[in-house]
């Protein structure tokens, strides 16, 4: 991780590349509850490895933590590149302070992921809800399994929902002295990894769900340009 080597320099060197295409596939985002909801919000499901998170800052897009994925392969949907940058809102906003949004998924350095890329005009995170899974090899089977952002392994996927192990396999508590450090496996992880659904079985289950909720739209690699990071419009509840 490259961390805070001078915020002014970081500001000047703001490297966030923003698409000039403001057209969104969809102008509304539904609450993501069940997997079918997630799939209907997904443009592509890809795998890749994060090497090292970096920070950027843009007057409009704000502070971003950028997780660059390399060796990207696309399991479903349309995504043609071999690299991908996931720029989540959050990071240093000055030389003294940092923005952090607990609801947004955090990707750690030197970690492989399977990611559901959104098909909407996103601003906070390009990931569909918390559908970003760390890939870890189950040493007993030699196969990839999925670990959810909560630190629990995925044990099942159906139309009804995702199922997870009762206990976590990684400690997901963030220490801001090393905010992108790969989460360590907990004691007992090998036993839990052995109970996890394999990545291959997960993808088979996804394929089965796609007949009900096919992927649609395309992924926009940059956040929406019609927003300002530090001003969020309010809107009272509609009259019921």
């Amino acid at each position, binding site marked *: 991780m490259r961390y805070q080597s001078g915020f002014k320099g970081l500001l000047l060197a703001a490297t966030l590349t923003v698409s000039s295409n403001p057209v969104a596939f969809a*102008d509304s985002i539904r609450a993501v*509850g069940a997997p079918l909801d997630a799939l209907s919000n997904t443009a592509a499901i890809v795998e890749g490895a994060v090497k090292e998170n970096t920070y950027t800052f843009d007057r409009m897009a704000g502070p971003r933590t950028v997780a660059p994925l390399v060796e990207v392969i696309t399991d479903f949907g349309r995504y043609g590149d071999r690299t991908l940058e996931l720029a989540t809102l959050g990071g240093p906003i000055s030389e003294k302070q*940092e923005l*952090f949004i*607990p609801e947004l998924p955090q990707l750690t350095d030197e970690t492989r992921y399977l990611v559901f890329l959104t098909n909407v005009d996103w601003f906070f995170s390009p990931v569909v809800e918390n559908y970003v899974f760390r890939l870890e090899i189950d040493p007993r089977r030699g196969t990839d399994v999925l670990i959810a952002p*909560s630190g629990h392994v995925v044990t099942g996927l159906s139309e009804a929902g995702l199922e997870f192990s009762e206990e976590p396999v990684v400690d997901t508590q963030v220490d801001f002295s090393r905010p992108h450090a790969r989460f360590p496996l907990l004691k007992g992880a090998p036993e839990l990894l052995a109970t996890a659904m394999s990545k291959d079985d997960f993808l088979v289950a996804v394929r089965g769900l796609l007949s009900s909720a096919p992927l649609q739209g395309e992924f926009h690699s940059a956040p929406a340009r019609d927003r300002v990071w530090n001003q969020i419009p*309010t809107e009272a*509840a509609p009259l019921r």
Partner: protein
Amino acid sequence: MNRKNIVAGAVLLSGFLMASHADAFGFFKCSGNEMNWNDPFQMVRNKASFPPGSGSESSLKNAIGRWNGVQGMADMVSLSSVTNPLSFIETGDGQNDVALTNRNLIGGNNGLTLLIHNLCVLSSSWVEADVLVANDLMPGHVAEDSLMTDSQRVTFLHEFGHVHGLGHSQHFNNMRTVQPRPVVGGTNETVDVLPDDANGGRFLYPNGNFEINLFASAQRKTSGDQIVLNNTGTKTFCSSGGATITLNATVGNNGTIPLTSDQRWWVSTSADAHSVGQGIQIFTLNNTTFAAGSVSQQTVAFKMPALPAGTYFLFHGVDGIPPNESRDDDNAVREAVKIKVNNC
């Protein structure tokens, strides 16, 4: 809840299984030190989002009141007397805001809390929190025997956990990542701080006080990490009794000391018979000990007593420790199952 110690009429047949856990909460660190607020802080309401007397105002006040209601945890958050008349909230201005907004503007989330902290060197603390909640959520009461996935009250309680500096934790708690989240029993407020949440609050802001409180819940967490109802559907029996019934049951201790209590199950034709005296007791289990700050999920099996024909609501209650409980209205829950008794 000051119930008499009625002798059980039914007989425990076979299983009494109980599982519990403790101290499972998430928080954030700087160089190994927990991050929290240095001082109590105020939240500024967006004026249009919280009309006086509205459901959204009630949801917000409930969340703040429930967190401040955790005994053993210092009161950290309060509502400012001033309101924000603008049509936006600003992050990074040093003011803690809370507002409703269109779901589209918070990435499809039910709620979003934007936290600012001092850069971490050896230690760090939170200095600003802005809370935004989707305006299409339902602000009303959450029924004790339901699995609600669009509750504004639940969302506010969750986001104010983040405001205090708690992270996600997948247990029988409010800091779970997604709804449904568990609620407590009773006809009053069901959205409350649960044991793991309270443990986290006491860890970050300890004030040395203790709390005594047991509650019953109609929900449970499965081994697949999902929140489900303990019992559902309709169970049919003969009026002569004698058949075996197997029930799931949940009791939480969101206090700071272990408590030993009796548990009772009763039926009533009234949906609001939250006192055993308002129904017909069908089973009792004496002297169960519930560890401090934990949730106990049980499975009990017993023989049904003779009952008049009819369709009943089923209640599960845990005796309180009167008069010391911090809440006395969450000790009994209506389970999401009906008991049908036929003449036979």
